[in-house]
């Protein structure tokens, strides 16, 4: 009798002790230490990459390349920016970067007074070096240290030469550009013109539009109405390409037209694969990011002073429908 009671109580007690132990272990294990506080800031260069087009494959590549290089060189890099070309916010981010007194700013160039004002006056006031990447702004207007990216002039020439090779020496070519006509766009157009002007049989129509879809569609309709015998389209700003191609496709077959574009828009590669584009200038975004950070570090470390004001050019190549398959 005594034994039974003792045994029963003992085993119940043991079971509960077992669960208590498990619970206690879980309790201790669930404790998680807060992140270690750091008492002094890291003695590393703080760099910021500011862009207008966060989230696009092109700028993702630029960011990844820059981050990899920053890690390699032991710098702190943050990628700031706006989505969908919000210029006001972009300028605000740039100003914050300057006011935050980062050690260097790598920025997508923007041909606007406010941008120039920030880089030329304010950044210079704080002594912050600025490198433009992918899109350039003239040295004299921005006080940038250097430019890292594709040679827009050469890209224009390449695209024009491809067009000549595809179409021959005669025809009407429509150049579609953003109405803001930024510096790099002007450079591209200049490159294209420099080649096409040598062929008297080729007629060039330069059309500009804002980047809103209806405007692009309207501009495309207009130009096709005015010049029904148009042979080729060259989209100088990649952001205009999808709407333009769509409108052309709605009006007639896409195939007869020679359509060329640049690659800094997420939809371009898909259009190329579908055969709606005949050729795309492919740039090297990853290399841009890498080189940008490397140059910035070299300037900060005083290894290369001054930097080549003409810029450090990255590879461009022509990607055709066949090449994209």
């Amino acid at each position: 009798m005594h034994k039974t009671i003792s045994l029963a109580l003992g085993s119940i007690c043991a079971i509960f002790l077992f669960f208590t132990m498990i619970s206690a272990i879980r309790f201790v294990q669930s404790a998680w230490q807060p992140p270690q506080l750091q008492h002094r800031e890291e003695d590393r260069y703080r760099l910021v990459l500011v862009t207008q087009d966060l989230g696009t494959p092109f700028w993702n590549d630029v960011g990844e390349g820059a981050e990899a290089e920053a890690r390699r060189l032991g710098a702190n890099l943050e990628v700031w920016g706006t989505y969908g070309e919000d210029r006001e916010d972009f300028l605000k981010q740039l100003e914050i970067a300057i006011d935050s007194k980062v050690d260097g700013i790598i920025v997508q160039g923007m041909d606007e007074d406010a941008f120039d004002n920030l880089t030329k006056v304010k950044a210079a006031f704080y002594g912050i070096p600025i490198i433009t990447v992918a899109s350039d702004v003239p040295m004299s207007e921005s006080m940038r240290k250097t430019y890292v990216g594709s040679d827009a002039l050469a890209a224009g020439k390449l695209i024009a030469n491809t067009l000549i090779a595809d179409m021959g020496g005669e025809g009407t070519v429509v150049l579609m550009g953003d109405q803001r006509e930024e510096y790099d766009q002007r450079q591209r157009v200049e490159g294209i013109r420099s080649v096409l002007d040598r062929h008297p049989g080729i007629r060039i129509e330069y059309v500009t539009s804002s980047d809103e879809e209806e405007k692009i569609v309207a501009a495309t309709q207009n130009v096709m109405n005015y010049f029904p015998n148009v042979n080729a389209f060259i989209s100088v700003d990649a952001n205009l390409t999808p709407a333009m191609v769509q409108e052309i496709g709605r009006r007639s077959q896409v195939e007869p037209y020679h359509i060329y574009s640049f690659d800094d828009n997420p939809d371009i590669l898909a259009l190329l694969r579908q055969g709606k584009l005949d050729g795309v200038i492919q740039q090297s975004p990853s290399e841009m990011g890498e080189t940008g950070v490397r140059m910035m570090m070299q300037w900060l470390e005083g290894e290369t002073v001054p930097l080549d004001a003409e810029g450090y050019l990255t590879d461009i190549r022509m990607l055709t429908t066949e090449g994209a398959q």
Partner: protein
Amino acid sequence: MIGIQRKIWTLTAIVMFIMASIWIMLTYYNQKTQDQYNEILQRYLIMNEVTTASRQTVNALNIYLLTPTEGNLSSLRRGEQQLRDAQSSVGVLRNEENDFALTSYMNLIDSLIETTDRSVMFKSERETEESSKAFAEATRISRYISEMTLQLIDIELNTYERFYRSIIEQAEELKKLGIWILLAITFGLLLFTYWFSLSITRPVQQLTKAAQELAKGKFERQIVVNSSDEISFLATTFERMRVNINNLILEMKEKARLKSELQQSQLLLQESQLRSLQSQINPHFLFNILDTLSKKAFLEGAEETSDLLVSVAGLLRYNLKRLDRAVTLYDEVRVMRQYMEIQSARFTERLNLVTQIDERCLSVQMPGLTLQPIVENAVIHAIEPAEDGGTITVTIADAGDHVTVEIADDGPGMNEEKIIGILEERDMQPEGHSTGIGFGNVVRRLRLFYGISDVIEIHSGQGRGVRVLLKLPKTRRSDTYDKAIDRG
């Protein structure tokens, strides 16, 4: 010895200890959680403080620019100082995740102060346009600071998310742990209390049972109590009492037995003495006459008669002298022969005595006048009634630790009833003319003398004679008979 008091103290101490440790644990954990909460709140409050201070600074700058008085300037300076204090306390919040953002944040504060100073400077130099430009910039920077604060709080939430979740999780686990501990302790204490109470009540129960046994008069069973406390002391004392009472009872019983034996033998003695006194009528006068008669017979040439008379005198003397003494078998045999000589003179040819006596056995001690009454009984019952007479056979032989004395006759025998009467020591009416000492008396004295009952056997059957067998131990068991006799 572990006292009951100490046991209770131990139990209480253990319970107190467990409760105290749980309390300390809970308090410690609560304190820790409180600290963590405070720290978290502190972080947010510090960040918020920066925003507030920056807004105040810009506000103060605005007021100063509108009315540039010394008082407004000093309130602007106070605002700036406040901002600097907030900035230095923000520095404490640095960790791996927010390093970049925090540095930017602190630099933004620097920029704000610089821009503010610039605005004040332009104002003092009367360059109003530059001043208001700087003010616009300061306002923007202040807005950036607010935004950056939100961004920092966002980073903070991301960084600390796991930590916050762990706090919630831990609180949840603590609740479960509390329940388990409560259950485990409850049953642990139940078990412990059960054992503990058992260790007190079990000895008490054992003791109670033992007391009941004693109350029923069973003093033989030993009292065993498995305990080491006060109860065990009680049990030991109780056990000692039991042993003492038991010894006293045994002693009393022994004394009572001895007393009753003594009384019995005294009674017997008195009876035999009375009988013997009744049987002697002025014995010395009788001895003298018998001696004279013997001499006379001898002188007259009747030698046989003379011898007979001597035998009678010897027998009488023995009868008077030896009744209260232990004698040897030798003496008994001698007296028996004298008696038989006298009887031979009476029965002549009819009485035939056959003796087979082992001389080595004759030193055995025995009560006086035992053999003669038995032989007399044989003569009275076997020889007297028979016209042709009979034979009495007396055989004395060694049988190891005792001597057997067999008296057999070839008379008509004895019936069963009478034999039982003799063996149960009942006194019969003496038949005929015996010495007066009955068979029963002899049996009783023999048993008293040797202290054993198995000393005499009587075998008989109708027409087969009587065979009396005495088994006399060579060593006596006790001397009580002698002592009793001496005292009597």
